[in-house]
């Protein structure tokens, strides 16, 4: 089985976000980038499938820091690693990259495309459906377990309230991974160092083929909510002050 897994680099949420001058994008210049967590799980699922029944895993990374993440993917067991060029200093749009992913999948006769169910730049989880549609093959999103049996896949999908649904589908298929069957493994620094010699392929993007249907006209940073107040650590004084505050807000009688 040939598996293609998509690894997207997204702005580190612990960093400070600032808007670009035109107010329509995040200023990416001073940001750290990290692998989208769901994509990390997709990678793990790919490696688990490889370990369970044999597969060739190709990891395709997009965005700043792709090289580092591809070395990590190689250290974890990816057989081939490719950096897909993307527009610099721009967010990774699923609409934009879907055609490139589909083209790479077709060119290598990939049986299974795995990506994270969503990313902070695609909270609606559009990548898997887009790629599925372009490849004209089944897609399921929100998986938490994938078992391969020849060309058949058994895919468990998480629904709300602890309900789980299991599908059976034939490859080729596209899956949006919510969580891998096992938590992503740790790769040691010495394995990373070894993997740093892995040759990294390059791929140029395909035109998306979609007309732009809408433009971002403005972006707003999260507004700081009310700030917390520290009441100290002495139980008696804390209780007094709490009663005082509640009374002041009319929530308790003093």
């Amino acid at each position, binding site marked *: 089985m040939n598996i293609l897994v998509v690894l997207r680099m997204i702005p580190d949420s612990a960093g400070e976000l600032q808007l670009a001058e035109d107010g329509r994008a995040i200023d990416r210049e001073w940001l750290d980038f990290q692998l989208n967590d769901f994509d990390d799980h997709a990678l793990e699922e790919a490696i688990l499938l490889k370990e369970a029944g044999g597969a060739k895993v190709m990891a395709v990374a997009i965005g700043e820091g792709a090289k580092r993440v591809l070395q990590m993917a190689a250290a974890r067991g990816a057989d081939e690693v490719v950096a897909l060029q993307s527009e610099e200093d721009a967010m990774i749009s699923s609409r934009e990259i879907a055609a490139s992913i589909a083209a790479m999948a077709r060119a290598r006769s990939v049986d299974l495309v795995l990506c994270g169910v969503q990313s902070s730049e695609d909270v609606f989880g559009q990548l898997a459906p887009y790629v599925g549609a372009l490849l004209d093959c089944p897609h399921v999103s929100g998986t938490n377990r994938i078992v391969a049996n020849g060309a058949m896949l058994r895919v468990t999908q998480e629904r709300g309230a602890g309900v789980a649904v299991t599908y059976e589908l034939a490859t080729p298929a596209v899956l949006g991974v919510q969580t891998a069957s096992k*938590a992503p493994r740790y790769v040691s620094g010495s394995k*990373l160092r070894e993997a740093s010699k892995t040759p990294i392929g390059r791929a140029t993007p395909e035109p998306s083929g979609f007309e732009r249907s809408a433009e971002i006209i403005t972006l707003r940073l999260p507004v700081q909510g009310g700030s917390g107040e520290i009441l100290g650590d002495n139980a008696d004084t804390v209780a007094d002050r709490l009663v005082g505050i509640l009374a002041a807000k009319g929530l308790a009688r003093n």
Partner: protein
Amino acid sequence: MASTLPLWILVVAALVLTSWRARRYAVSLARAPAAARFDQPMRRLEGVMVAIGLHRKMLRKPLSGVLHAIIFVSFFVLFTATIDAFGSRLFPGFSLGVIGGETWIAALQDIFSVLMLVGVGLALYQRYVLRPARFEGSNGKDAAIIYVLIVLIVVSLLLEAAARIEGGADGSWRPVASAVAGLLGRAGISAPAAEEVFYWIHVGAILAFLVYIPGSKHRHMFLAAPNIYFRNLEPRGLAPAVPKQREAPGVDSLGMFDWKQQLDLLSCTECGRCQAVCPAYAAGLPLSPKTLITDMRDALAAPTALPLVGGVIADETLWACTTCRACMEACPVEIEHLPKIIDMRRHLVDEGRVSPGLQDALSNLTRLGNSMGKPSKMRARWTKELGFPVKDAREEPVDVLWFVGDYASYDPRVQEITRKVAELLTAAGVDFGILFDAERNSGNDVRRAGEEGLFETLAQSNIDEINACRFNRIMTTDPHSLNALKNDYRHFGAAFEVLHYTALLAELIADGKLDLHVADGARVTYHDPCYLGRYNGGFDAPRALIRSAGYTLHDMPRCRENSFCCGAGGGRIWQGDDGVTERPSENRIREALSLGDVAYFVVACPKDKVMYTAATDALGATGKLKVVDIAELLVPRASQALDMPAVETT
């Protein structure tokens, strides 16, 4: 003599049996990877003299030390009797008589026989009446068998001499045996027959002892001295490198340990001194440094199908260690627990067998160079609230390059102290700078968590940045960084002069460059951080600072080399508290509270401020004891003096 042949047969049989019983160890040691422990013979010998001749570490526990010294000296004196017993019959005509075997040597043997019995009596009293907890997990049967054999050897020796005296030999040099002879006479025992019987009991017991030793902790009679001689002479803070010839970074079978690490296993006396000081053991975690060693020893003696890591030694045992080094400091025969733990952790890390907490921290360190997952750009954030700019050491030369460390840089609970240190340096006119976002975690605990590859990446990055700066000395806030920069970075050929901030501040005060408010002698206690004290000998500078600031130090019972770890080191801070019955930090705060008269618990490590503040909170003791960094006690005269909290003394 008619008994020569039988004795020869017995002796040869015993020697063959002994070698056969020791064969496994011998083969294993012979096959073990090399270890470079043959340098500096004089220094090595000196250490053996101090350790054995003066019983230095042994005497830290007075009763044990004294009773062991008595048995030890008696053993040497009575060895003359053994030479006599075997020599005289194996080689007819041999006698110690020419050098005083019947006079002063005889008298010594007589007296030391009694002393030996006194020593064994004390040992029995200690083991069966006092029953110190450190013997828990030791092999009690082994100890009992040895006591019986020693008593048998000594008593038969006395009785043999007594029978000889009763039969008419001169007893003037043997007062004790003479007294016993009188008793024998009254009992009507026939002298020549009794002498012969006691002789054979004596040599029989000695040979039994010899045959028994290879399977017993009493191997240490032969191995303690070599094990101490071949001890590690490298700086204490230098974790052993991964040997070049090793294919994987870690160790997952006993045979991969070099011969010294294996010799350690065979030398353990099961005294439990290491266990008694281990914070992980005290916290109820599944680690005792003693059983760590004896479990591996037993696996060496009787090979098992279990894997070493995750079988003979459980994963949780390895992760429980804080790398505080207290065990190695306590061990009288210089057994090296930590290199073994680190090597086995290296195997776990290589296999990806790490707890989720540790995985998060290591992943953050890989990605961002700090364990908290904060962007590098925020590393120097703490400087913003200073009233003055801090120099960028990458841009301009500085006298002191300050390596700030993760906690001091990022943790909001510690940043306040970091700023205090900056203010003190400025008040003293020190020309200092920092690396801003180019600093990475020093890798000290990464290395000790077994992540050698990541350690190398972090270290190399720091070394490159530091080498690109112009400076005279490096100062660190964090004792862990101090240790890495000073010791571990030698692996990369980096030799920096590195100081802890307590050392630099003490120097500034001694030079009269820092004028401080002087308190009125209020009593405080001080916690020696493992990586400042035990690892790097930084005991005195913090104490000098406390004195200079006008406080009176009331040390806790466990201080200096015997300081008790806060529980955060070696990567423990990144792991959960699962299985912990009492947090080491709380154990320590209780110790401070029991002093009864201190208001401040003074620390000199950013992690300690975090750990101990949490511990005081958890114990509900915030009203009684305040955790302060040593920098908070030092208040330049130009600033407002510190307000000492009142303390209820008990």
